[in-house]
């Protein structure tokens, strides 16, 4: 299997794409940064290692990239987002050249930030070999330790009383400063005008009040229900440290248990919202 640089070269040489979205070395050792490579000369910047945590697919829907022929370096988890974007008419399959990464797991954070543990999303990953790609590249990685603590936290929350759960989330959401980093990084938050920015009417208060924060976080989670592919980027970028993955994963769990649905697997499969089954469960409806 070729390495990322020779793959990138051949993409340009064979004019498979106008640009390549990939990872580059960051200024600090033990970090990577997203990079857009447009010429053969720049190709040497590309790297691929276990610090490639970011989900780059979020850049596919950026205005400047829309409609262009773009190549992207994407791990299986990132490809789920690409699948979802195709299913939601945001990108066309033929416009995106997917360099799928065979991946054994990435690090939870950069050097000095949990970099010795495996990212939680990798523990339950079912797409270590990508499920949609144009070309494969292998990421060399080492066995990383780590447990899925969030799965336990979800169960713990489920077992709490409603009041306890409310108190828990009240405390978490209180820290929200409405920076919307969670939204900006999310590959599936591609709306040009988010409902949070809608002013007529203002469904979600702009100032970071308890009430506005609660509304925002519920709406964010709901809009991603049945869509979120679990890349966990929102939680990673949240400056307030709100455990957003708990909610996201809870909703993915619901989608699975109620509908047997998993997002991001098949671009041609019907989406969860937008379809229905006459036999959908309704034991909660009077």
């Amino acid at each position, binding site marked *: 299997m070729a390495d990322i640089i020779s793959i990138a070269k051949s993409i340009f040489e064979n004019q498979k794409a106008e640009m390549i979205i990939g990872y580059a070395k960051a200024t600090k050792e033990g970090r990577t940064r997203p990079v857009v490579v447009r010429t053969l000369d720049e190709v040497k910047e590309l790297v691929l290692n276990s610090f490639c945590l970011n989900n780059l697919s979020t850049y596919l829907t950026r205005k400047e990239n829309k409609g262009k022929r773009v190549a992207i370096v994407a791990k299986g988890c990132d490809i789920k987002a690409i699948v979802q974007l195709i299913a939601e*008419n945001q990108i066309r399959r033929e416009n995106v050249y997917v360099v799928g990464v065979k991946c054994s797991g990435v690090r939870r954070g950069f050097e000095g930030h949990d970099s010795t543990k495996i990212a939680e999303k990798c523990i339950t990953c079912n797409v270590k070999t990508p499920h949609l790609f144009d070309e494969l590249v292998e990421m060399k990685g080492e066995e990383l330790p780590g447990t899925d603590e969030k799965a336990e936290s979800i169960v713990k929350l489920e077992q709490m009383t409603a009041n306890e759960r409310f108190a828990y989330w009240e405390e978490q959401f209180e820290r929200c400063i409405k920076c919307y980093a969670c939204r900006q990084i999310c590959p599936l938050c*591609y*709306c040009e005008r*988010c409902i949070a920015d809608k002013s007529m009417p203002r469904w979600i208060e702009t100032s970071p009040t308890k009430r506005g924060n609660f509304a925002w976080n519920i709406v964010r989670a709901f809009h991603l229900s049945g869509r979120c592919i679990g890349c966990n980027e929102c939680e990673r970028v949240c400056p307030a440290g709100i455990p957003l993955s708990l909610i996201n994963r809870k909703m993915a769990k619901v989608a699975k248990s109620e509908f047997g649905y998993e997002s991001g697997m098949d671009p041609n499969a019907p989406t969860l919202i*937008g*379809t229905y089954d006459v036999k959908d469960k309704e034991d909660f409806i009077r």
Partner: protein
Amino acid sequence: MMRIGVFVCHCGENIGKTVDCPKIAKEAVKLPNVVYSIDYKYMCSDPGQNMIKQAILEHKLNAVVVASCSPHMHEKTFRKACAAAGLNPYMCEIANIREHCSWVHDNVEEATKKALDLIRMTVERVKFNYPLSEIRVPVTRRALVIGGGIAGIQATLDIAGAGFKVILVEKEPSIGGHMSQLSETFPTLDCSQCILTPRMVEVYQHPNVKLYTYSEVENVEGFIGNFKVTIRKKARSIKESLCTGCGLCVQKCPIKKAPSEFDEGLANRPAIYVPFPQAVPNIPVIDRTVCTYFKTGKCQLCKKVCGRDAIDYDQKDELVTEDVGAIIVATGYKLYKIDKKARDSLVKGYGEYGYGKYKDVIDGLQFERLASASGPTSGEILRPSDKKQPKKVVFIQCVGSRDPSKGFEYCSKICCMYTAKHAMLYKHKVHDGEAYVFYMDIRAGGKGYEEFVRRAIEEDRVKYIRGRVSRIYEKRGKYIVKGEDTLSGVPVEIEADMVVLATAIVAQPEAPKLAQTLGIPYDKYGFYAEVHPKLRPVESSSGGIFLAGACQSPKDIPESVAMASAAASKALVLFGNEMLEREPIVAKVNENTCVGCFYCKKVCAYNAIELKEIRDKKGNLVKVIASVNTGLCQGCGTCNATCPSKSIELIGFNDEQIYYQIKAL
């Protein structure tokens, strides 16, 4: 600047008794932007409407809230009044303080508080209303009539007679419905077929009528004025265009023992059959479930004798589509078969009457066939079991009707009359016979009806016993009918030779399915619901779909015919114009913010979301977004709730209107 007027209706005492109307009128004027408020005895009356009109002009109102009855009742009235005063009708909103307040609450303080809340919420909402104008759509001036019984026939002939094309769909091989099975009709005792068959023939020969028998409506798309209907023509196994109706195939068919549907199982028919001699069209059908050829691959006798080579064993169901502007549903009724296990949990059944177990315990339609000159006994009243003339016949009314504990709560309406008729016909045919009728009450409202029942009692000496029958059992060839005479308070026991049960009229078992196909509501019994029980009794709540006959509730022939003509006239009203004006409650896309995820398209049941390309000045494609076909959009708003960025909104029920209504809680 909004200048809102609030008009509080007392509705006589209906609202005024539990809601302090003068007080809420005084309070309402204190609400922001409300510049005028008044209460009046009857807002919907002429003087009431004039008050609104005058206030609009005098106080320069640009929005109106009427606190009154349900918007389903008078929203149109008040919007019209506003329009008459030059205010856009969609600037008028209703606060329902009658059905949802004064009628359901006793406490004046609570009801008044609630009424004021409802007004406040509506005032907040109306601030975000904006003037709208009707959408105009073309009307296809052809009608579809579903069901070829007397109601469907009448509606068909009326519309066809007015010069418009009608498509009549009947699921049985022949039109005619239940009326074709009847012997004589009350209260005149004229022969049912004698009055019906000429109309059936008229339908068949009418140049404006396209008849689909042995066919069912499979799918309906579209909306008032513009329906696309898919009809399943079931395989008759006969090439209709070749068949002359000579009947040779029917005579030669070796299968003779299939129970005749037309004769209610009292006689048999062949596998290839015409349901009854006067059938329209007079074209046979092969019952594939009993035909030897379809079961064993051998026989083909009918094909051999057919001189026209009209038999087609390979015929398949065929789907045809028709464009129509109006639909009349006239699917009729069924008799409740009490031997069968109740088809739903609504009824417990009447096993104690032995229907299905005793051959001589029959239902009303079976008696019609016995009494009919064209029936299995040529009109002689004979027991099905031994073909002997019964000398004592007991008729039992309300079997399944008016019985909340074991049957249906409703009255089947026609049984009092047909039982009187049955008893009378029996007495006319068996002069030395005795007829008993068990009844709960005699309901003989209708022209000549009471007189008819009296005649049965007084002239024909039918013995009426007020009471219910508890049990019927067989003893030495007789049926012991045990009941009670509640007037004299004594138990009654009659040794009958035959028992006729006036079983309840029930909706067609497939009625809910058709309702779902058509998108019309039905009640818990499966009868179709009219949009207003008094003032719009023949309209369903879906525009352009009308109801006729017993599919709406039990009905006799004159009523069914009257309803059918009414439904036909409703369709003709629709056909009176080439264009139809529709409420402008449709979805609208914000082209600036739509990103074309097309979740709206996924949830739209009407295919009303189309793709639209947005290009820049140079013609480069910027994005592909959603766009609403306002002809197809029905205004449900599912897209609005689904859209994550709220880039599609339902006009008339948009986010702002609802947001501020909620906020005013």
